[in-house]
């Protein structure tokens, strides 16, 4: 335990309103603390520069999964366990459930949250690629008001987000428009379970007479942020029936949309090659 504990504050506002007032009063001084599965690791490694936290863990406004005919809306504090337990998500948004099942371990899944995962903004996060292909929207709330934004626009750069210092992610909304689509999610980690992703591809496609009518493709661990591969999607929509040559061309375009690096977990070359192979696997669905 490499942190000087007495210097860390963790207060517990009892209502969302109070949390937002705190953020408004001292912006950038306070950060939200959800399940702690990322922040506590940093704390113990002596790498948590932020000292003041407010716990949002028990705020009721941030919990729960609500369904309307058009949308499923998840509270930002929906845990990975709760995602997997939702029958609606299992049926209509299986990639989100797959991602949740492959995040950490049972113990991590009980405490890790979607909102926390999004705000932590790791390019290797497991759920964001699924959220991206589901065209998720985020609700960001501050004392000044609330706004919805497409999740595709949230991550601006490595650990840079369109999130003001007085804003909290409160809800994640996905439109119930994926029924009947082919759905693919594959995370390649360092081992079968409890692994950090080296490459992750989420894909959904709608076929029409053997050609791809619509498609979404998102990847993790191959760029400074999770990425939607819009050029690849565009190409596929126009590609007609996919010949081996077309698949190869698609891979080339995908390769141009990602920027993997060498790090101590893997190599750029491996990530690029496997991303292309996963794409081919998705297209074979």
């Amino acid at each position: 335990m490499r942190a000087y504990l007495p210097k860390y504050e963790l207060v517990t506002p009892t209502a969302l309103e109070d949390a937002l007032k705190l953020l408004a009063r001292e912006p950038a001084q306070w950060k939200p603390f959800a399940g702690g599965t990322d922040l506590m690791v940093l704390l113990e490694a002596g790498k948590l520069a932020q000292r003041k936290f407010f716990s949002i863990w028990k705020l009721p406004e941030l919990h729960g999964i609500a369904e309307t005919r058009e949308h499923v809306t998840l509270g930002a504090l929906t845990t990975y366990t709760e995602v997997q337990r939702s029958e609606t998500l299992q049926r209509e948004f299986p990639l989100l459930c797959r991602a949740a099942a492959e995040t950490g371990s049972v113990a991590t899944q009980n405490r890790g949250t979607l909102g926390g995962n999004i705000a932590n903004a790791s390019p290797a996060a497991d759920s964001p690629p699924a959220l991206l292909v589901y065209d998720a929207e985020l609700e960001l709330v501050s004392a000044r008001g609330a706004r919805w934004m497409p999740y595709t626009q949230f991550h601006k750069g490595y650990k840079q987000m369109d999130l003001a210092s007085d804003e909290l992610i409160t809800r994640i909304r996905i439109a119930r428009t994926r029924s009947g689509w082919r759905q693919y999610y594959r995370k390649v980690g360092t081992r079968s379970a409890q692994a950090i992703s080296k490459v992750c591809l989420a894909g959904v496609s709608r076929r029409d007479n053997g050609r791809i009518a619509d498609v979404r493709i998102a990847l993790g661990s191959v760029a400074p942020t999770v990425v939607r591969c819009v050029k690849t999607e565009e190409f596929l929509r126009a590609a007609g029936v996919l010949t081996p040559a077309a698949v190869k061309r698609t891979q080339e375009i995908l390769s141009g949309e990602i920027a993997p690096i060498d790090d101590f977990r893997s190599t750029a070359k491996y990530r690029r090659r496997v991303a292309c192979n996963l794409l081919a696997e998705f297209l074979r669905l």
Partner: protein
Amino acid sequence: MPDAAKVRIAMRVNGREVAVDAWPMARLLDVLREELRLTGTKEGCGEGECGACAVLLDGALVNSCLVPAVHADGASVTTIEGIANGEQLHAMQQAFLEHGGAQCGICTPGMVLAAVNLLERCPNPTDTDIRAGLAGNLCRCTGYMKIFESVLVACKQKGDRSQMTGK
């Protein structure tokens, strides 16, 4: 130098009401081991990877090295010390004891709790369920084989018992 103040944490630990003063970001692991002297829960990595620190928090399996003390306030915590019935071992403990589920024993408290939790969620686990349910508990000694056997033995015993009582 200190900025924060200690906070009072009131919890129910192994069925007993307790109250301790702790730094707000103190790990539940340290509160259990140091304030309450419940040393059965172990630290293996301090990163939430090994599961040696696993406890049940309001019935959910968590890595106590990643839970700040403040989050345990008002909660019910079960540690390895809380699952036997006096001197009578829990079926899972008995199974580990008889079937080689414990070698050096350091992963055992977390592993037993994870296994108990698995059977609560999934009374008839398949091989895949067991492997997935225990994947957050690392064991360097056993190669996991005898842990799987122990879980299956405990599972069968529970099944036999519930058949007997008709539950």
